[in-house]
């Protein structure tokens, strides 16, 4: 079974994240990291590959330092890495990124078929959660998004997931090849150990550009984006803030404050 795990390089959410004048997230290196939620995708892919004797390719689309994201995937145990790098990709929205990823998955599938594409549930920078299903659509694959559990039945050639939504819990199944996005509750991602880190140094990272993938520049990047940020500003600090230490009447004071503010 051949599994492609899509990963993203994002600014660390513990760092002071900023938007630039163009309204894009500032990615100036140093505090970038593999999107935490994609570690769950890599873990899910590795676990399936171990169970069903498969191989895992980690795939990313992004600027130079995005290669760190796939390297982390290799250290965790992936077999192969692909980094799609092209200036024309800058400014892509989720849909544009899905188009590039889809072309890369097709490119990989041309040599050896891809049975499963796994992604995280969201990127911790934009948090749109649009990418997984957009990618499935661009690849014309069935999608099993937001999996909190995932099983593959190789004999039947199916994948089955359980997912929790705001109002319901669902079980979905589809024939492979398919796309699955996983939540952070599905597993506990492994830490790369020394052996994994050493082995990763010898594993190949293939770099591809838009021409290699046959992607039309007009459909991706800022040129292809269907949305344009007009304004971005730090949210003004909250005013009239109150901080009290309870000396026995803080609950009463809170009640009075809520009434005064017409919040009850």
């Amino acid at each position, binding site marked *: 079974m051949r599994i492609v795990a899509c990963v993203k390089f994002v600014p660390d959410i513990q760092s002071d994240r900023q938007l630039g004048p163009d309204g894009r997230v500032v990615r100036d290196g140093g505090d970038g990291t593999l999107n935490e939620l994609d570690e769950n995708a890599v873990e899910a892919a590795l676990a399936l590959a171990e169970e069903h004797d498969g191989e895992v390719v980690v795939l990313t689309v992004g600027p130079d330092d995005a290669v760190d994201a796939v390297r982390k995937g290799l250290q965790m145990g992936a077999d192969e890495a692909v980094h799609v790098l092209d200036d024309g990709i800058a400014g892509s929205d989720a849909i544009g990124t899905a188009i590039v990823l889809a072309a890369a998955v097709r490119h990989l599938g041309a040599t050896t078929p891809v049975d499963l594409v796994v992604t995280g549930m969201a990127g911790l920078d934009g948090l749109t959660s649009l990418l997984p*299903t957009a990618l499935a659509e661009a690849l014309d694959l069935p999608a099993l*998004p937001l999996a909190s559990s995932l099983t593959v039945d190789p004999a039947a050639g199916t994948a089955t997931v359980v997912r929790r939504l705001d109002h319901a819990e669902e079980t979905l199944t589809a024939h492979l090849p398919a796309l699955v996005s996983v939540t952070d509750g599905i597993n506990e991602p492994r830490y790369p150990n020394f052996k994994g880190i050493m082995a990763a140094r010898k594993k190949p990272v293939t770099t591809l550009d838009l021409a290699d993938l046959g992607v039309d520049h007009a459909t991706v990047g800022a040129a292809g984006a269907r949305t344009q940020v007009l304004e971005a*500003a730090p949210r003004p600090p909250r005013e009239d*803030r*109150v901080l*009290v230490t309870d000396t026995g009447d*803080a609950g009463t004071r*809170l*009640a009075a404050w809520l009434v005064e*503010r017409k919040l009850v």
Partner: protein
Amino acid sequence: MTATPVLVLLDHAADGTLRTPVRELLTLARGLAGDAGVHGVWAGGEDVAAAVPVLAAQGVTTVHRLVTDADVHLSSVLADGLQAALAASGSALLLLVSSFENKEAAARLAVRTGAGVVTDADGVSLDGARVVAHKTVLAGTWTTSCAVTAPTALVLVKANAVTAQDAAVPSAPQVVDLPVEVGAASGRVRLVARTEHAASGRPDLGSAHVVVVGGRGTEGNFAAVEELADVLGGAVGATRVATDEGWIGHDAQIGQTGVTVAPRLYVGAGVSGAVHHRGGMQASGTIVAVNSDPDAPIFEIADFGIVGDLFTVLPQAASELRRLRG
């Protein structure tokens, strides 16, 4: 003013009642549509009758009821239906409640049609004929506005973004059946099981005006949190620690990987305010925090912070609120 109607996806429960945020979206849509009017799209086999009085009060002129044998709970089928409804209504702007399911359908629709998508918007306005969506990003620390440059705009709007108001003049909504051609791809996922969550008697977490949240500091005792929530008519939420410990169901988890809330009032008790949690609540109107640790990060974003024990502060607040109300 747009020359086209604004289309709204009418999310509803299994008994046919509209989800609370839908009224907010219809109110928003009315302001944007002007004379072109507001259309709704009804997905699923449930009877639309229960919703019609609300739709009338909101001034909805036409409801496109999707007719298909396929399951509209599948994103691909819903995308097929929304595409048909956009065509039938002649609309260039579709508003949806910002939920995971709706995001899945919107993503597919965008790839199919070239539409532009904005998720988690907290406002929508028009700049000439261009749709501009407003949203806070990076865990509520930045505000942005974003124009849709594609001819069709799909905007997913957060609950509590606007205050729902009835139209000055009610309408008599026309319900029209819209047969949906389901694409070959839509049959490839099978919905094996779907269990609706039992109603809790409290408002929906995602759309409640008031949310009271318990964290590790409750040590598993949510009684004080529930009591205050009930006095305030609010929903009960939790941090991931509380749900992982099994103190409360997973669907109560607020945060970047749980429910995103933006109520008028958020009360966090025994919640430290870790960045993962803040991502799901920092856009709340007013934030109250009760925590015994004066250095808890949640105090950095609290409008009213109390350094104290939640087991004394919450019951006292609840009883005082009851007294003030008489």
